[in-house]
């Protein structure tokens, strides 16, 4: 069971993201570097969050506050990363394989978001994944038929792509000086993260609801992100 659940969970959580990574990102050197830099920024954001979490003791007992803090810092660092990236914008366009393509901006935004997502997926889920090699399972509180590791794997795999979609939406707005798309993306992030509160709760079928929330948000945000590609102005 241990090995099987380990591989199952690992591929469930990271399989789609790794497929995108190897099929799309690794083809271009600058995309890889972009992804690593954005992963570093996400790491910075979570480190700052964890420092605050560590200092402010009451936060450690209120998950809602923790989520608020974490999401806020992630969005702040998304903004910071955009500031950094917009400085290198012309350079990034020039050195890409298609210097004048209108798809460069969405592509860079997507890869950056994927970096955010992959790093967040790795950091959030990897220790559970390591534990899932053990002989036991932990059942999910809201749906006793499923174990925690499996739920975590699904949530992780959804969040990786949610990050990519949010990043595309937010960057698209910022490139045009609009803050509304960013506001929407941040709101969606809060919604999705607060949705995961349902999983450990004692509400009946809470885990299904939390997954459903994530999926709905992912569909909506992906639609919006796709429109940023086709949007010409």
């Amino acid at each position, binding site marked *: 069971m241990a090995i099987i659940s380990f591989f199952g969970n690992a591929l469930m959580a990271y399989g789609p993201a790794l497929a995108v990574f190897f099929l799309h990102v690794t083809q271009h050197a600058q995309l890889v570097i972009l992804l*690593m830099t954005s992963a570093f920024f996400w790491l910075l954001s979570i480190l700052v969050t964890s420092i605050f*979490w560590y200092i402010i003791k009451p936060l450690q007992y209120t998950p809602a506050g923790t989520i608020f803090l974490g999401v806020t810092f992630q969005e702040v660092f998304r903004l910071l990363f955009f500031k950094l990236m917009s400085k290198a914008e012309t350079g990034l366009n020039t*050195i890409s394989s298609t210097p004048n393509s209108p798809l460069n901006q969405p592509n860079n935004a997507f890869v950056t978001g994927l970096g955010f997502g992959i790093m967040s997926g790795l950091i959030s889920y990897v220790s559970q994944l390591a534990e899932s090699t053990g002989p036991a399972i932990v059942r999910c509180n809201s749906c006793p038929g499923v174990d925690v590791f499996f739920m975590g794997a699904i949530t992780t795999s959804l969040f990786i792509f949610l990050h990519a979609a949010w990043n595309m939406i937010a960057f698209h707005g910022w490139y045009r000086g609009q803050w509304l798309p960013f506001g929407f993306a941040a709101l969606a992030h809060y919604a999705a993260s607060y949705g995961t509160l349902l999983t450990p709760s004692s509400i009946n079928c809470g885990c299904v609801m939390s997954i459903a929330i994530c999926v709905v948000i992912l569909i909506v945000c992906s639609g919006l992100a796709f429109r940023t590609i086709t949007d010409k102005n």
Partner: protein
Amino acid sequence: MRSPRSRSPRTIFPEVVVEANPSSPSLAQPSTTSPVMPPADFSARPPSAPARGRIRNRRRRIQGRGNVAQVINSETHFIDRIKRFFPFASKSSANNSAADPIPIAGSPVVVPPRTTSTVELQEQLPAEELTEDEKMEDLKFYMEQIYLIIKPVICCMALSILWVKLTTEFEENYSTGIDQQSPPQTTVGSSFGFSRNSSGSAFVSALAILGQIVGATILVAILFYFNCMKILYGVFVLIVTALLGTFGWTLASELLSIHNLALDKITFWFFIWNLVAVGVLMIFYKGPLFLQQAYLVLMSSMMAYTLTKLPALTTWILLALLAIWDLIAVLCPFGPLRILVETAQNEEREIPALLYSVMIWMMATPGDPPSSSRPSSTAPTDGTRSTISRRMSAARSDSSSWNVFHDYGDASALIGPSFAVGSGIELEERSKDRSPVAATGPRGEPMPNVSPDSSSARETAGDRPAPSDTAAEVEEEEAARGGLKLGLGDFVFYSVLVARAALFDWITTLACTVAVLTGLNMTIFLLAMYQKALPALPISIAFGILFYFVSAVTLTPFINGLVRRPDKVIVPGAETWLWVGQGGGGGMLYV
């Protein structure tokens, strides 16, 4: 550094400029008979599409070839190198006589790297500034170089993590990361395996290890400075044999014992013997490039794994000291690594590639950005060049490792027939029937970074004994030439840091990995800006140590706190603990 030959051109230069510049139009005019010939001022090169395509093709091929060749193993032919070096060392027969006609022509070309004096020269010649386009080309070049370098680094780290995880006791897997509900009150130090009374001895032992590294570095620098290449190679063979043997032995026996596997001694010895013998042959003689790279990465990872056996505090002190030592060795005027590089540059010798495979080499050296090979990559765009233009472009490609010297290309074309030894060839369109001399001659490829001046190219062009190079080998060597190089010492100590983190926790491991890689990225960007050898350890190690402690203290409990779970039940006397479902379920919050 010590050779007068190289010092004189610095002083001669301004005069050469004055004389060379007026002559340049007259020389360049005949060549413009060909329709697409780029203008004499190469810095204003036309952004013609074919040229860009060519550049890209060439790079892609470099990328396609083995990347660690660029990173680790700058040359594959040990015997050739020995043939080349030893006449040089014993009596100045082949090398110098072949290079003799050149000195006048060569002396303006033998240029130090972009040290301060060169920078001054660049300031004197504002016309030689890189254009925006070329900067972009450089940037792209470095981007690809980073990519190429990162792959083996990641491989090495992953292998060391794997060794650590495979050799850790099984029961520790269950307690990875996730803490008890109320973490025990401990001091920061004790949770990382520090014991109270060992800090003094830890410092001493770290200093002892550092002392050995410093001693070895200085020794190698001295040996290289006085051209004792035979001793150097002998020492390297011995070291590699010993490393592969002992570390392979340690690791294999540990894996066997921990996983409780039985293996008879004869098979074990046979395995170790094979590992060592094949490894030494691969690294020092010849073999498939992939295997060479694999062996070097394997060796570094095993070395890193062995270093994790040090006490935690010793490791951290050692890493911090190493970063400082790296700064000193590379940047100080008399740092041994700096002496090494400058000797190599001034004496027209390449640092033997083996240096890269030994752990004392801890710096990143810049590759030649495409701007340095710019003239030659634009020149072949016209198929019908006159010989003089070809010669010029070849001479330029020879001399243009520095942008400063584009105008001197004409001057060297004046004196240039000796340059034409290996130069009258199509620089880009390499075919299989090309003569080996031409293939290894100045062809506008990025020169080996350790000698960015033209010297080594001239050396290889002039006096290389015509070997039976196949085109593949040539390309391999060429791929090995341009590009950044990262010492195996960096590989080892990055991996030590990550493996140390892997002993603690997965989250910390990932944080350290990303931090170290980002530090490496920053170092390479600095390299692109400053264009000189830089220590690769300090930024990465600083990031790594910082992220290790921050994430070990705050991030791991934070992430684990996000996973709601019932209490662990520790069964007294049992090997491990269980989660028992009666206490209610859990669930994961995702930030």
